[in-house]
């Protein structure tokens, strides 16, 4: 078995608001094996992006442990962290706002290389940028263009090249294809898959799109209001969802196939902000199976089948 490159233990991120403590991420545990992809799905406000950023310490977690290759990232000093960032990169959702409009493709892709002082010679640097551009499928002639001259798909390729520039081991992909049209989305997903095989990359793939996460991930964690409610291999989760929320989420996905028409479970109500959450199942208010016990304590994530974890005291029959 491959080693765990990422190990997250009881990660919490709370934000102070005028209404109370917002528990954006509230005790999240998971591991990611080297070379594999963990997909993290959930709706707006479930804490999936906050989790991704907290792991990279782009925002400081409130508490918990994050091990990268055996070292606790949260205990790193400034300089140690800077070194670690070479190994851990992120690709952002919006290729329109995540690239500096005043920089050329060359400047954008070479920036991380310069920061980490990997290549000092100017010619070598340009060659490295050209090599990266070729890797992500950007034509050489685009090296001096600015982001506004390029379409969304090409911009996202710049974002990928920038993340790859320092030869990272681990990349957080935060909704990398959500802003793109389907035909372009497929191009970028194929590219990320291909790069994973080539460089043995480990991904944390954050998305709200269930068909994309199913296609892309080895394992999937479903988040709801700051907690992981279910975790399993991609195949297992789609075949046998055990948490009522996962079941509703899967049934809500419109499928572009007429033979696959199915009964949808329409959830009542909406996701609330996780402010000052009481000690109860966070899904209980919208859950059609909820009983009194569900409102008396927070269910723990437990293994129901080998490798299949669910945080529900009364999981559905698989």
């Amino acid at each position, binding site marked *: 078995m491959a080693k765990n490159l990422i190990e997250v233990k009881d990660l919490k991120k709370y934000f102070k608001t005028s209404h109370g403590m917002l528990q954006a991420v509230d005790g999240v545990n998971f591991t990611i094996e080297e070379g594999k992809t963990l997909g993290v799905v959930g709706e707006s406000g479930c804490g999936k992006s906050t989790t991704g950023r907290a792991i990279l310490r782009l925002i400081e977690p409130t508490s918990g442990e994050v091990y990268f290759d055996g070292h606790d990232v949260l205990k790193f000093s400034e300089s140690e962290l800077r070194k670690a960032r070479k190994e851990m990169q992120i690709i952002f959702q919006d290729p329109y706002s995540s690239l500096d409009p005043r920089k050329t493709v060359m400047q954008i892709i070479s920036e991380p290389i310069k920061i980490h002082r990997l290549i000092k010679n100017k010619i070598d640097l340009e060659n490295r940028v050209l090599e990266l551009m070729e890797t992500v499928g950007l034509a050489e002639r685009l090296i001096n263009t600015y982001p506004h001259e390029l379409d969304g798909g090409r911009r996202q390729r710049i974002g990928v090249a920038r993340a790859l520039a320092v030869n990272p081991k681990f990349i957080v992909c935060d909704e990398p294809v959500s802003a793109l049209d389907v035909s372009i989305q*497929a191009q970028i997903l*194929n590219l990320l898959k291909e790069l994973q095989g080539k460089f043995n990359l480990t991904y944390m793939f954050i998305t709200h799109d269930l*068909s994309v996460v*199913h296609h892309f991930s080895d394992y999937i964690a479903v988040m709801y209001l700051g907690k992981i409610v279910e975790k399993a291999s991609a195949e297992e989760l789609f075949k046998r969802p055990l948490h009522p929320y996962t079941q509703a989420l899967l049934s*809500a996905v419109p499928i572009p196939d007429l033979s696959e028409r199915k009964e949808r479970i329409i959830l009542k109500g*909406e996701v609330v902000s996780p402010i000052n959450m009481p000690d109860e199942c966070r899904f209980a208010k919208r859950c059609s199976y909820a009983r009194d016990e569900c409102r008396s304590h927070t269910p723990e994530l437990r293994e129901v089948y080998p490798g299949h974890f669910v945080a529900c005291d009364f999981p559905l029959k698989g």
Partner: protein
Amino acid sequence: MKDNDLIINIENLIVHYETEEGTVRAVNGIDLKMKKKRSIGLVGETGAGKTTTALAMLRLIPDPPGVIKNGVIVLNGENILDKSVKEMENIRGKDISMIFQDPMTALNPVFTVGEQIAESIMLHEDVSKKEAYERAKELLEMVGISGNRANEYPHQFSGGMRQRAIIAIALACQPKVLIADEPTTALDVTIQAQVLELINDLMEKHETALLMITHDLGVVAEVCDEVAVMYAGRIVEKGSLEDVFNRTKHPYTEGLFNSLPNIKDRKAKLKPIPGLMPDPTNLPIGCAFSPRCPYANDICREQKPVPRWISSTHMVECSAYDDPSFHIARREK
């Protein structure tokens, strides 16, 4: 089809945006018929001309630079392109309504939700302010929001609730035609499911014709009876849901399906359409899809394809079918 079910008939609509950089050929001659209680999904990627088509139906194309070059849009036997500005004001909201994509920006932040629904009723019907407000409350109830929240402001509503409020405004005067421009794109899936169900129910109840603009073929499969696939300002394939999904004919439609992850087989590799949508100021001479099409031949690159009716319901615009033995790789179901 009974002819008296026909509500809107668009013929040879051409819309250009004349900018300093050149003429953007956004819509290049489309025909579309909408019938009572029927819903059409208008599918395509960014820049295909979907929203421009919808705006033309409401005469809301920004002018300048937009110009409706040609075509007729017949509503109730009359061409709305001949209507005066004043007459259009009576048509918008009363005969044709539109739901916009972004529920965060489509509502006015300084008026209560109830006032905004009532405004639409007062514009078109001879009712007092009080009556209109009461009707607004009923409409809110109809879309699943408690009527006593009518005096709240948009910022007090969540995204899903705002989209429901917008639907309430659009349906306030029971329009014959409802245009929904990506109504669920900004929403989460469980909320999307709620809104789609609401649109389906309301259409049924009010006998509205629906034009659903979307890039999501899954949404089309859930909501629509017919599908029109747009590419570079043309409808390249049109037919019943079964025609387009199960007996796909156009290579672009095939490409769209192949780009989507297969829910039944997660290991299946995605087959994206190579390249990009052509620049609408500089469209290819022949078929606009030919530079990206795996089946394109010399005729495709030189001549504009013409509509070809495969059955009474199914149209495809592709010259490759000049060869009777031609077929795409996607199998019929």
